């Protein structure tokens, strides 16, 4: 066996020499993009409309994929206008699908470049990039006797993932879901069917007619509120309200929340730069390059032409927003991103984190 292994690794080294300076995978990627375990990708096998503004994408992941746990999200990299942009979406299918596929459900957000692209323009057969699933928003073990899910808009997606995989393990489930109208409820039919079967108690709130849900409303709608283990997902204001409400009742340990955090952009420019490597934090007004701010604070950073042409100063932007001082173009990093930016001509456009 050792001989065969040696022969195989020897043969592989020869192939690597033939393709140097690129790797054999760069050639194989053209024919079989899902075979490359170094670069996780998926093929969109189907695009199913859910509501007017949302679709479910059935994804066939390639080598390197690890199955998710219900409630977790996955980062998806999509090429929009030639630029690879990454966004996080909750997995809405149960992990046990026999065909190895999984689904995400995307809601087109106004001004959302990626979500609009996925909902309106994505076709079957498109290849997207993936990260392995992650997230702490999961059902607990052992399962609670009573469960409550409070969701709004696309906040239903991680909860749907949980219900689809573990509803049979839960005996008493209440779902309080808010959406603009009845038609805008993602998975509306499925939720109503579950309610009709008596498997969940569904409370729909149509905010365009009835206004937003307040935590006080919950006390009325769900009388045994604080006897329940609660999972909530939706807009930040809603989650803030809920967290305060649960804290007031000294029941914080019963509440789990999942936030889709939008990046803060300071339109006036400026913000706090965090240099992750050295731990240095600098306050800036956004008129000075990141490189100058860092160096002035004693951070060691690579540098070159100092005018934006040589790309020697490029460092990863981990989180936050920076602005190109030449043409004002914004670069925004979502949590988990790693976007190389030119530090000599970029300035903070809000709080941001640079790897240096």
């Amino acid at each position, binding site marked *: 066996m050792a001989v065969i292994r040696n022969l195989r690794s020897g043969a592989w080294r*020869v192939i690597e*020499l*033939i393709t*140097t*300076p*690129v790797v054999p995978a*760069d*050639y194989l990627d*053209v024919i079989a993009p899902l075979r490359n375990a170094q*670069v996780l990708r998926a093929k969109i096998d189907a695009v199913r409309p859910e509501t007017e503004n949302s679709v479910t994408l059935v994804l066939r992941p390639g080598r390197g994929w690890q199955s998710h746990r219900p409630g977790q999200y996955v980062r998806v990299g999509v*090429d929009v*206008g*030639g*630029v*690879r*942009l990454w966004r996080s979406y909750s997995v809405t299918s149960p992990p046990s699908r026999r065909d190895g596929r999984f689904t995400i459900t995307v809601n087109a957000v106004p001004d959302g470049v990626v979500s609009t692209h996925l909902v309106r323009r994505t076709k079957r057969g498109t290849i997207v990039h993936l990260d392995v699933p992650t997230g702490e928003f999961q059902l607990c073990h052992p399962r609670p006797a009573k469960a409550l899910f409070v969701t709004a808009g696309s906040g239903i997606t991680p909860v749907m993932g949980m219900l689809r995989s573990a509803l049979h393990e839960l005996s008493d489930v209440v779902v309080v879901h808010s959406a603009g109208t009845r038609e805008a409820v993602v998975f509306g039919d499925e939720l109503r069917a579950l309610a009709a079967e008596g498997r969940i108690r569904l409370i729909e709130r149509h905010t365009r007619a009835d206004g937003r849900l307040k935590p006080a409303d919950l006390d009325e709608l769900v009388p045994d509120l604080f006897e329940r283990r609660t999972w909530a997902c939706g807009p930040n204001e809603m989650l803030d309200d809920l967290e305060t409400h649960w804290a007031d009742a000294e029941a914080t340990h019963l509440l789990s929340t999942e936030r889709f955090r939008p990046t803060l952009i300071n339109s006036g420019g400026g913000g706090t730069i965090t240099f992750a490597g050295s731990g240095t934090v600098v306050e800036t007004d956004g008129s000075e*390059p990141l490189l100058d701010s860092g160096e002035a604070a004693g951070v060691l950073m690579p540098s*070159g*032409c*100092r*005018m*934006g*042409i*040589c*790309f*020697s100063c*490029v460092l990863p932007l981990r989180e936050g927003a920076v602005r190109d*001082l*030449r*043409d004002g*173009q914004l670069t925004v990093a979502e949590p988990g991103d790693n*976007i*190389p930016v*030119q530090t*000599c*001509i970029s300035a903070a456009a809000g709080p941001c984190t640079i790897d240096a």
Partner: protein
Amino acid sequence: MTTIQRKKSNPIAHLTHEDIEQIGIELDAIRDEVMASRGEKDAAYIRRVIAWQRGLELGSRGVLLFSLFPPAWLIGTAGLSVAKILENMEVGHNILHGQWDWMRDPKIHSTKWEWDHASPAEQWKHSHNELHHTYTNVVGRDNDLGYGIMRVDEDQKWHPAHLGQPFYNFLNACFFEYGIAAYDLELGRNLATKERRQNPKFKAALKAVRRKIGKQVLKDYVVHPALSGPSFLHTIAANATANLVRNLWSHSVIMCGHFPTGVETFEKTSIEGETRGEWYLRQMLGSANISGSKAMHLMTGNLSHQIEHHLFPDMPSNRYKEIAPKIQDLFQRYGLSYVSGPLPKQVASAWYKVFRLALPNRGEAAIRRPVEKKAPAVSTRWRRAQPQVPASAHLGSAALGTPAPVALSAE
């Protein structure tokens, strides 16, 4: 050429400081328009070129497995030569310039790319992107002026060793990729003293080059020939020919960028406190284009648009063609000369200079004119001039940096 500051009639004497800053403003506007319109079509372009290049290389190497047969040898060698040229010029050179970084595809990114070349990408990016593109044609700062082995400017000091420079240039052309690797290592300077030879940074760089060359040589002269079996020697010859063709071609194209007649050079002191407008102007005067067909632009990696490339080194190469008329118009309006010509003419012009300057200066050129000194100042090349700011606006004048005398128009 003599540096512009020592010339009897200065080609930019007619430009005021405001003119130069206005040129900068117009160029920034051209840049912004193109950069904002980069999109799917451009991304598809570079991916297509890469796919074609890889297909051509793989196909040619496949044909060369049977290089014993003369037609296979010819077709394979021709294909491999073209593939190697594309890989170095339109693909490698331009990706390493960061022209495609905006796509955020880690597979096509200046920080990750490695090319079929003796010089490792990291080292080349330093000497080329940083030094050559920032200090273009500044005598004593830009080593691309003669690569440290030749004298290509009257203001470079003559030494009897320069008598041999036509021969060095020919040798450099044949082994161009190794010449570049030696140049990026600053071999002449770093081998000069024991201290420099022992410098750990230099030793690490040298090791990286040795590894890179080792792999390249193994691929082209051992593995690939061995796979060809009975065609072993023929494949070695084919690969050597393809490398030679690529070297001669890229050397010729690159000589045309800055050496032909009409291209200007600059004094070291002239770039003290250089503004963005002044930097742009230096790029305009310091580069020359090659005119020709679409195929010519592709095979030169669009370095046929050397002027446009030097103005905007990080602009995707497929877009230079569309801005060239605007740039030409700008030259004309400001009374500057846009140096361009067909490849044979530009190559001949560059070679003529190599021969001529092998000898010491004679006649007019032998008289060294004094240079007006410019006060030392910090360069602010990244800072844009604000368009049409009234004199009272405080930000505008501050943004222009030091209101120094216009050193470029000394005469």
